[in-house]
């Protein structure tokens, strides 16, 4: 996304969230919220324009901003599930909550907006783009204002649904250029992982549990698991998905109204129908947010650990043999991005033309040092091939992880092994062997292309 597109998107997102909350509230609540939000917005914009930030944010500044932004927004995720109605109405506590909501929605977003705008226009020299972006933002905000005047957010949001939806959208949607590195999922996962590591290390020291580089005990395996990425990712997923899930369930499991006083059956049905429509309407935005959160979580997880899938290097058969160089030759993946290569041993792929079809061979060194060659297909799945994710191969069709030590063994979702011979720095496969193996594989799923 271009910087200006992100900038406009971020500005309109902030305006839409502000107008949603503004439209939901009324009277004194609305005034308290609007005043705080506007004051925080002006303050944020002022901070974004400070000359101190013109040379770029330092690591410490970025870290502090990140923590403050995420802390504020996370607070509303928590408040949303603690109580549906306690935080709205009158009273100091309730006004305080609304003030915090206003600060959360405008302080950091406006700071990042003005900072990015200044960077693109003043330092980047894109004056025309800046003016156009300002016009588009102004027009967009006006259109949103007109649209929100006709909408009634109170019709579709419950108080807790509003808090959770605003907090999620504020947290998870992308920020302008210059702040786009601030991703809630990866930051939260990192923070949880660090916190878990500290807690587990303290418990290990306190309980005199063993911790050694090469003497591995069950207690150490448990401690290692608790500090591992699986646990921190699970906790991050719970942090992001539980609040909207709880709020959606709360909205949908609301008890049906008592229809006994209505004597006529048609009136009872009408009342129940209106109730059910209302429940669905109020649960819909939170369910949408739940789906969005899941998508953001999935995307972040995928980008954090991409599957390494090298482009096959073409081979030409010589004298009925294919000679595969063991010193590599694998090309980088041609997908527009460069995922990090896994630590050795890494997957290598080669291709050969057999009877007008392309057959892909994967070659890998097992952890025991044995170099094995297999077809890039298994006996049971359509031949979509394999990619490497850390210390396992992943079948791209069924996502089954294949431990590297089992390479060369036939059966199941393991890649079909090929007989090969190590000759100097080459692994040699007879073309006949490749033809018979690919014919065997093609029995289930037809010829390869």
């Amino acid at each position, binding site marked *: 996304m271009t910087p200006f597109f992100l900038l406009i998107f971020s500005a309109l997102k902030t305006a839409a969230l502000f107008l949603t909350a503004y439209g939901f509230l009324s009277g004194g609540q609305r005034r308290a919220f609007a005043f705080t939000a506007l004051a925080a917005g002006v303050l944020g914009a002022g901070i974004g324009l400070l000359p101190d930030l013109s040379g770029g944010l330092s690591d410490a500044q970025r870290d502090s901003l990140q923590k403050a932004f995420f802390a504020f927004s996370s607070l509303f995720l928590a408040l949303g599930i603690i109580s549906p109605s306690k935080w709205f109405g009158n009273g100091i506590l309730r006004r305080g909550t609304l003030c915090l909501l206003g600060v959360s929605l405008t302080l950091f977003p406006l700071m990042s907006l003005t900072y990015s705008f200044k960077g693109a226009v003043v330092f980047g020299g894109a004056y025309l783009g800046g003016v156009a972006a300002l016009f588009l933002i102004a027009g967009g905000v006006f259109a949103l204002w007109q649209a929100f005047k006709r909408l009634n957010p109170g019709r579709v949001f419950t108080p807790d649904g509003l808090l959770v939806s605003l907090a999620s959208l504020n947290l998870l949607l992308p920020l302008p250029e210059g702040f786009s590195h601030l991703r809630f999922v990866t930051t939260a996962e990192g923070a949880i992982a660090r916190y878990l590591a500290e807690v587990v290390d303290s418990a290990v020291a306190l309980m005199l549990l063993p911790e050694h580089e*090469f*003497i*591995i005990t069950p207690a150490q395996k448990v401690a290692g698991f608790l500090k591992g990425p699986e646990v921190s990712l699970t906790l991050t997923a719970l942090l992001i998905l539980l609040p909207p899930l709880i709020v959606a369930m709360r909205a949908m499991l609301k008890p049906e109204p008592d229809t006994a006083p209505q004597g006529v059956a048609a009136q009872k049905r009408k009342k129940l129908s209106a109730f059910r429509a209302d429940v669905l309407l109020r649960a819909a935005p939170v369910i949408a947010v739940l789906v969005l959160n899941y998508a953001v979580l999935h995307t972040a997880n995928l980008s954090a650990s991409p599957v390494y899938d090298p482009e096959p290097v073409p081979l030409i058969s010589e004298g009925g043999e294919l000679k595969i160089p063991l010193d590599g030759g694998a090309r980088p993946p041609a997908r527009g991005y460069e995922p990090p290569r896994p630590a050795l*041993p890494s997957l290598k792929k080669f291709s050969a033309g057999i009877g007008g079809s392309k057959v892909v061979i994967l070659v890998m060194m097992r952890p025991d040092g044995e170099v094995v060659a297999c077809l890039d297909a298994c006996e049971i799945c359509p031949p979509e091939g394999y990619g490497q994710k850390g210390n396992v191969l992943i079948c791209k069709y069924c996502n089954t992880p294949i431990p590297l030590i089992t390479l060369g063994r036939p059966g199941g979702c393991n890649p079909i092994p090929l007989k090969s011979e190590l000759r100097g720095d080459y692994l040699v496969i007879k073309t006949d062997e490749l033809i018979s193996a690919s014919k065997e594989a093609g029995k289930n799923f037809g010829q390869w292309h």
Partner: protein
Amino acid sequence: MALRLRRYILYAGLLITALGALLSLTTRRTDIPALIEGDTGGDIGLLKLATDMPGEYMTFGDSGDFKLKSVRAEVQVEGKPYAIRMFPPKRTKRGWARIEDIGFSLRLKLNGSAETLALKVLPPGREDKFISGGKEFSVSLEPEKEIPKGSIKGKVYNLRLPLFKVKADGKEAVLKKGEPVSLGKDKLLYEGSPLWVRVAFVKDPGLLLVYLGIGLLALSPVAFLRFK
């Protein structure tokens, strides 16, 4: 009553763990001596050491997977023998004891004077340093043989009777047991390589409370489900 009980288990677990942790943090004292196999002269001695260390260990390229699953030391503390492992810690006359680390020592005659060095050269491939006569020496395990496999070399280390490579002043020599070698002007004689262990002796009055508290906390979900 059942509801109260399950609450009490959780609260008691939290309280006891917190008390134990506080006591541990304020009063724990730790002593970690290195003990060499067969050395039983002082108050603490290592009578016997049993490990699942392989006789031979092989690495390929830069990769290796050196792991031990069990280390058991028979340690004599003030005349009384104790069997000590990595976990759980054993109560001895000097406090709670558990194995902290293991490695090869090197009994060496360097220019005529005998030295016993507790080296950290495990996993094979790691280098350790020692200083003698103002000179720094680097020591690492040396593979007994190398097996070429394609473009990669496999290294085989003999861990029953290890070979050591010593480097100093840009020169290097391989030490074989009983064979004197010269390293520049220095004369070295490798006399043996018994294993050493570092045993942590921990005096901690809060440790039992911590175990009890953690046990109660672990029990509380069971109690919650049982008495629901």
